[in-house]
């Protein structure tokens, strides 16, 4: 069934939100164990963990960009070219993902 771009941005927005909601308690718990931080940080150098970290940051970027799109649609004056917001959201997410990949 053909789906428009707004649908995919919305689905990514939802899935990334769920992922972040699941991840955050772990993130907070990990930060609380700051006393053993060096050992913990050493563990995070593993490739699997790095990939997961990258995934979480991309999820955050995707959710952030999708959220800006929702706020724009709901509060700013309406224009016909609203679908370009979906494209803009995707572009921002990709940019952040690449930036992080390069940094890592």
């Amino acid at each position, binding site marked *: 069934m053909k789906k428009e771009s707004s649908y995919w941005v919305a689905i990514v927005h939802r899935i990334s939100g*769920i992922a972040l909601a699941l991840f955050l308690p772990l993130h907070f718990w990990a930060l609380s164990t700051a006393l053993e931080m060096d050992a913990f940080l050493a563990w995070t150098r593993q490739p699997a963990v790095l990939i997961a970290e990258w995934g979480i940051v991309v999820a*955050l970027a995707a959710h952030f960009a999708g959220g800006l799109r929702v706020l724009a649609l709901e509060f700013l004056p309406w224009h016909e070219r609203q679908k370009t917001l979906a494209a803009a959201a995707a572009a921002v997410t990709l940019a952040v993902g690449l930036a992080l990949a390069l940094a890592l």
Partner: protein
Amino acid sequence: MTPRLETLLWIAQRATAAVLALCVAVHLATIIYAVQGGLTAAEILGRTRGNHAWLAFYSVFVIAVSVHAPIGLRAVFLEWLRWRGASRDVALALFAAALAWLGMRAVFAVFT
């Protein structure tokens, strides 16, 4: 839920979304910058310990997330899990409390 309460939830979610937009932009930039060249505990804690600006910033971040995430999940629970009624709201309120508690605990662990 009454129209009044539904509307208040929606307002809370959009308001915290606006706050989080700022927090996330700062957080993402910080993470990408900090990750370059590796991280040590000393480097992180050197920046955060006793830094009241960071304490204030991350406290706002934690509280905003504790409001925003559960309200977002509320729609997902209804639409994808068919979960409605008081039990859904109670579960989400508990999740909000858990996020706030774990989050503030993390903030204080890193700042004191």
